[in-house]
């Protein structure tokens, strides 16, 4: 698939993904808008501009792998897969509904288009290590990307896996931290401060860099640097804004795991350039 790195075009894509995320979660009546919106640029940059990924050949053994370790933010992944045509667009509106492949947290059994079921935090980076080491055994050069939440860095297993990847110098593995600075109930700095976060990863023998994770140019520069870094894994600490793109969701823990109500939905979509007032629909 041709890679898209044109920032203006990607910004249009991001706007569409944000609309889809709000629409999906509103129709579902539940879900996690805050962390989905913060990760829009990261996920779309990976799928559209970085990874060796073909939506027509999703089980290509040479493909790059993406693991959404922060599985509760699956609306951004589903919306991205629909944008690429890997899953039908109309399936987005079945999110969290009985019988839908779009589970509230991703399931590879119900949706083979995703690499692995997640939803319980702290596990994705370990899974990525297994995939990355399998490439070593099979003498393949695919890369593995795991997107972690910032709160997820409070999980012990995250650091177990960080130590493993550093020890084995797994340079085809890249962790991205969606550092939106807000976890379920409070700001991360209040609940349990992660700082100094980059130094923690460096201490575990990773290459670590800090970027603006809502800025495509910064993301691509970091991904290029990660790919060029040999002999150690790379952690991209992506500073983002929780709820990015919807003013009243930005930085508000209240929208970590809550759908907008009717008025909030109309207001959010208006901010994203869509008029859904008076019962007008968005498809």
């Amino acid at each position, binding site marked *: 698939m041709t890679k898209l790195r044109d920032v203006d075009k990607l910004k249009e894509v991001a706007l569409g993904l944000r609309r889809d995320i709000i629409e999906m979660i509103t129709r579902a009546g539940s879900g996690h808008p805050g962390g989905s919106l913060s990760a829009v640029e990261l996920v779309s940059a990976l799928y559209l501009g970085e990874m060796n990924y073909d939506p027509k050949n999703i089980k290509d*053994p040479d493909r790059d792998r993406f693991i959404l370790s922060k599985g509760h933010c699956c609306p951004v992944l589903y919306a991205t897969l629909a944008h690429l045509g890997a899953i039908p667009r109309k399936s987005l509106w079945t999110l969290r509904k009985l019988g839908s492949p779009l589970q509230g947290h991703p*399931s*590879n*059994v119900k949706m083979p288009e995703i*690499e*692995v*079921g*997640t*939803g*319980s935090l*702290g*596990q*994705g980076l*370990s*899974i*990525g*290590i*297994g*995939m*990355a*080491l*399998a*490439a070593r*055994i*099979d003498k393949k050069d695919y890369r593995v990307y795991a997107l972690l939440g910032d709160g997820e860095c409070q999980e*012990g*297993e995250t650091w*177990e*896996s960080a*130590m*493993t990847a550093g*020890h*084995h110098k797994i340079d085809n593995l890249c962790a991205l931290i969606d550092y939106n600075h807000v976890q379920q109930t409070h700001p991360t700095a209040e609940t349990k401060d992660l700082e100094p976060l980059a130094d923690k990863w460096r201490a575990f023998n990773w290459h670590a860099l800090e970027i603006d994770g809502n800025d495509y140019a910064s993301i691509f520069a970091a991904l290029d640097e990660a790919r060029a870094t040999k002999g150690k894994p790379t952690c991209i600490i992506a500073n983002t804004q929780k709820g990015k793109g919807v003013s009243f969701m930005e930085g508000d823990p209240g929208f970590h795991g809550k759908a907008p109500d009717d008025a909030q939905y109309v207001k959010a979509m208006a901010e994203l350039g869509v008029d859904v007032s008076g019962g007008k629909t968005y498809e």
Partner: protein
Amino acid sequence: MSDKIATRDAYGKILLEMGKKYPDLVVLDADLAGSTRTEWFGKEYPDRFYDIGIAEQDMVNIGAGFALSGKRVVCSSFAIFGSRAWEQIRNTAARCKLGIVFAYTHAGTSVGADGASAQANEDVAIFRAIPGMKVIVPADATETEKALPVVLENLDGPVYMRFSRAPVPIAFDDSYVFRIGKGVVCREGADVALIACGQMVALSLEAAETLARDGINARVINMASIKPIDEAMVVAAARDCGAVVTAEEHSIVGGLGSAVCEVLCEQHPAPVVRIGVKDVFGESGTPDELFDKYELSAPHIVKAARDAMQRAGK
């Protein structure tokens, strides 16, 4: 019956053989390779063996990553420590339907002098509760060497295999055939049924000898496949014998005894007496001392058989 081999040794031996048969076999351990015997595989196949260090949760999910990349995966640890990754096993290995064998050693009370912190008496219960998980408890070295190849050849989801540290008597010869979901009648009899797993099979056969001297013919069943369990064989045992004893080196909560009772209460109610650890923590001691104190030894199986028969009005 005189030879004794720890099932962990038999596991290490057959795992090494499987490394040759399956080039896609990847083995992981969490710092205990010398004790679990995965070190034997690791020395022969260093490119397919990773010691993840003391990080069981990481090990389980690294195994998941390998399985998702087309590898046949075996993860080993001690039963007690590997069980701390239960949620990883439940949510990733099982929910994602991954072909991973959790081959855990040093299970049960017979781990001995290390004491209660190391004696996993709850592992079968917690693994059995996971949807799609198979649970296999080989009786001896022979069955261990027969079971692992069958498990690896039919690896369509997660499997828990439980091995012991202590040497256990050899109950079977080389003609033994292991099948997932099938029990094996080791001794015919129709007065009482002794349904056992692990080294309790050998102790049940010993108990049956004692009972025979009093004219009681006990049917001894090896139920290595606890999940799926051989329901037909359990029901037939209750129907033919009228009285049942279960014997396991595990808590009476949630293990083989519970599995047998679940089958019988719905399909053929019969008196059942469960031999197992009675919902308590163990302590340091030799395996023999502990088996006596915690009422797991052959004389206790004999007594349980008589109690079950009495309750059945026999």
